[in-house]
C-alpha cells in the first residue's frame, strides 16, 4: 500500500496535496484497493461551496458504490474530466492522474485537522 509522505490524509481515505491554498484531492491506494475496479465517478460542480464532511462525489466499482467526502471546507475550483472516460486512472495512479477535484480552502489552517502519512498508516492497520 503506497502512502506518500508529502500528502495530508482524511479518516475517510481521501488524500490532499496542498499548493498555495488549494488542495488537490483524491482517494488513497488503500481506498481504491478496497473498491476494486472503478467504473464510474460522479464529481461535484465547479464553483460549489462545500463544508468539511459533505458528501460531494461518488466512486463506483463493478459492484460497489462509495461516497467521497470533502476533507476541508472551501470552493471546488476544478474536477478531473479525464475520469469520465478513464475511471480506471484511480486504480492505476491514485495519487497522480487519478485525482478527483481541487478545493480552494476557506481557511488554510484546516489542513492541520488532517493526518500525516504515519498517522494514516496506523489508521489503515487498525
Amino acid at each position, binding site marked *: 500500500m503506497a502512502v506518500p509522505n508529502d500528502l495530508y490524509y482524511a479518516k475517510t481515505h481521501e488524500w490532499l496535496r496542498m499548493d498555495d491554498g488549494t488542495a488537490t484531492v483524491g482517494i488513497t491506494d*488503500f481506498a481504491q484497493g478496497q473498491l476494486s475496479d472503478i467504473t464510474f465517478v460522479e464529481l461535484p460542480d465547479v464553483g460549489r461551496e462545500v463544508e468539511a464532511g459533505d458528501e460531494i462525489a*461518488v466512486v463506483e466499482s*463493478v*459492484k*460497489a458504490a*462509495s*461516497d467521497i467526502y470533502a476533507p476541508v471546507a472551501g470552493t471546488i475550483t476544478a474536477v478531473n474530466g479525464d475520469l469520465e472516460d478513464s475511471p480506471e486512472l484511480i486504480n492505476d495512479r491514485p495519487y497522480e492522474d487519478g485525482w478527483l477535484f481541487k478545493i480552494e480552502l476557506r481557511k488554510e489552517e484546516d489542513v492541520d485537522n488532517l493526518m500525516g502519512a504515519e498517522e494514516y498508516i496506523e*489508521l489503515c*492497520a487498525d
Partner: protein
Amino acid sequence: MHAYAIQFDEPVPYQRGLDIQHRLLAARQADEIPDTVLILQHTPVITLGNRGRDNYLLKTPEEYKALGIEVFHAERGGDVTYHAPGQWVLYPIIYLGGSGADSHSYLHNLEEVALRTLADFGVEGFRREGKNGAWTEQGKVAAIGFRLKKWVAFHGMSFNVNLDLSGFKTIVPCGLVGQPVASLSTALGDECSPMEAVRDRLLANFSEVCKRELEIFQSLEKSPEELRKIIFSS
C-alpha cells in the same frame, strides 16, 4: 474482531430490510455498535442498483404488481436483481475503513463466502473474469452489490438456495444478457439442503473469510438491547 449476526425466520419486505440497514448503518458509523450481519429472505422484489437501467425490466409495472413482485431503486452498486423466499440475503453492516491487513477486496471476500458455501454442499463454484458473483456450471448462484458510506458497507450478497427461478425471467439479471441464473437446488438436482443448513454455512464462512467472530441471534427480538433500541425506536 467481535461482530453480531441476526437471523430472520420470516421473509422481510424490502423496505423494512432497508430501514433496519439504515438504522444500523448510522449506529455503526457513530461506532455505537460492532459490525452486524443480517441474514434474511425477502418477499418477492426486484431491485435496481445505481447502474441498473429500467430496460433491464421485462414487464410493465402493472404486470409486476399482478405477479406480486415489488420494484425498488436501491442505492447500492451493481445492476438489477431479484429476491424472493428460498434465497438468503446477507447484509453485513461492516466497517471496511481500517482493515489494512486484508489484501483482498470486500467484493472478493463476499465471492469467497459464496464459493465456500457451495463447496460445503459438494457443488463446484467459480468466479468469472470480468463478471462478479459466484457461478456454477448451471449459472449464477450468488449476486453481489453494496454501498459504502463513511466506509461502512451495507447491502451485500444474495445466494440462491431453492427459490422459484421464474422471477429472474422477468428481468435481465445484473444486466447480463443471456446469462442463466441457477440455485443450489439446480446444481444438486432435487436433493437440496434445507435453508437453515445453508444459512449456518454462509454465516460460518463469512466469519472465517472476513475475520469476524459472530455472536448469532435467532431473531431481532433476541438480539442485544443496544440493537433493539436502534431498530425499534421511532
